[in-house]
């Protein structure tokens, strides 16, 4: 009665094993290779050394961020973002990069300002949430110079999770039946246990990710406070990882409380000491976003010529991030933003 299934018995099965061709497939472009063995071949070679990885943002960009690479930025658009490194990407005039657009707001605005991108996996782009839409990012996208593939925020975190787990795809129960799916590179699959439909999402291994954290040691052991957004998955999926950190702490401090390590050192390629490094974005428990300055960005973008002058003043004619902070009001302004964050009363 209960015949044991052998591999041979399964060959003349009553269930088809080939993927059902009648199930919908997204027609969007797939940026990157979802093969986990290609990723394993890369990670086999990646250094495991617990060495001093400190460097400046400029060196980190020169060494790890190349024209044409697939870039991902941690945090949430205008919250806990690695602004120091993004500015250096613009000054280094990087081009033709692919980008992970999961609630990309000020980070996306910057990369569009530098015309750094030609492919974007888009879940949320061109907007800055309640602040409004970026006129320049819209010009860039509406011009057609960037190839898009549509996803949802959850879809992109599932793609990173699949990569982090060494799988070629992950599953999702949203996107079904919509144009968001039709313009994605997902495929509808049927569950072998229940027959229910899900969207299979290709694993995503970004070439390089940049994540801003609260504390890290010189080896890259890093601590994130507050929400982690998708950064735990992203740090494991990215082939190269640049950490920018508000504070450097001794390795012994990490070892005294290892529960708090969000990202272990062997994932990390560079550690950039970047106090106030998320400015003008919010850094939880440290400083709030500079809404006035972000409004200046949105206003300046309305007129392309004015925006070019604005970019020269704040990015291209500026030597480093410290000079940018000075231009934006320096320590006085940062102290106000710190008060706004830390003295908020419920």
């Amino acid at each position: 009665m209960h015949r044991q299934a052998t591999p041979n018995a399964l060959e003349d099965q009553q269930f088809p094993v080939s993927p059902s061709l009648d199930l919908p497939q997204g027609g969007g472009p797939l940026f990157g290779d979802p093969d986990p063995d290609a990723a394993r071949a890369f990670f086999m070679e990646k250094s495991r050394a617990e060495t001093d990885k400190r460097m400046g943002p400029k060196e980190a960009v020169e060494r790890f961020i190349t024209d044409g690479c697939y870039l991902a930025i941690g945090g949430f658009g205008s919250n806990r973002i690695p602004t120091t490194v993004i500015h250096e990407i613009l000054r280094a005039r990087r081009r033709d990069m692919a980008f992970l657009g999961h609630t990309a707001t000020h980070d996306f605005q910057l990369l569009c300002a530098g015309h750094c991108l030609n492919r974007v996996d888009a879940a949320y782009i061109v907007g800055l949430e309640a602040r409004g839409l970026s006129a320049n990012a819209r010009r860039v996208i509406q011009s057609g110079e960037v190839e898009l593939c549509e996803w949802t925020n959850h879809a992109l975190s599932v793609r990173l999770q699949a990569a982090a787990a060494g799988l070629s795809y992950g599953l999702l129960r949203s996107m079904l039946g919509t144009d968001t799916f039709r313009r994605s590179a997902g495929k509808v699959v049927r569950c072998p246990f229940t027959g229910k439909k899900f969207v299979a999402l290709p694993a995503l291994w970004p070439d390089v990710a940049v994540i801003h954290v609260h504390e890290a040691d010189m080896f890259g052991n890093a601590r994130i406070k507050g929400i982690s957004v998708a950064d735990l998955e992203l740090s494991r999926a990215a082939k190269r990882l640049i950490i920018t950190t508000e504070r450097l702490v001794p390795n012994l401090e990490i070892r005294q409380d290892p529960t708090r390590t969000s990202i272990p050192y062997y994932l990390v390629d560079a550690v950039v000491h970047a106090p106030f490094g998320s400015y003008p974005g919010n850094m939880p428990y440290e400083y709030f976003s500079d809404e006035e300055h972000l409004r200046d960005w949105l206003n300046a973008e309305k007129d392309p010529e004015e925006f070019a002058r604005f970019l020269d003043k704040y990015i291209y004619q500026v030597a480093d991030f410290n000079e940018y902070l000075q231009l934006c009001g320096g320590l006085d302004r940062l102290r106000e933003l710190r008060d706004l964050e830390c003295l908020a009363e419920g």
Partner: protein
Amino acid sequence: MSAPYNMMEMMICASARLLEDGRTVAVGTGAPCAAAMLAQKTHAPNLMIAFEAGGLAPRLSRMPISVGDSCTFYQADCAASMAEMMTTCARGMIDYAFLGGAQIDQYGNLNSTSVGDYNKPKVRFPGSGGANDFASLCWRTMIMTVHNRSRFVEKVEFLTSPGYLGGPGEREEAGLPPNTGPYKIITDLAILGFDPLSKAIRVESLHPGVSLETVRENTSFELSAVSDLGETAPPLPGELEVLRREVDPEGLIIGRA
């Protein structure tokens, strides 16, 4: 006699009343967040508010500017991750979600992606963000929007987030979880719901001073109404006081109308 109020206050109060105590709600920034805060400070003190970037059950001290800024997990029960929040929706533990969009059709499908040719759009909007996930996975989706013909369209130019897709049974056929879908639409003219059989939008109550004709004139598709069409209760003085003093003292949302 009720105090004078504006249409944004009307929309926020009407939306807040739909949120039951002890339930869970996914919100974004702006008016939906104001509605959830108002509900929490009035009839629904045990309403759990969830933000897509991972802030769960915060004590909202002020209106967030971003669904990932530090207000969204201020004195929260849990500061987690996007995966934590989204899988909570997928497990069936988020009751309500609030969405908006540039266009909405008769089945409650939403466009927040683009208008015109997709590859070279006339206007590009942000895209799904988490909206498609919420519209797919939360039990009852609510939509807050201004009511005019360019919003309420025959056909959305890009179907970003699912309503009832092409009609009855289509959500289930596509693979979306059963018994989910759009629940109410709160506009500056009326509260709308969905016909249980046809799954098409219908008018359920008119805001004070608004006629059914006005609602129809501002809608590009044919619009039915329930037979016992009533009037939306205007904001109560107590609701307005909490809304103006505690929820949005700077008038960031209610000052706009």
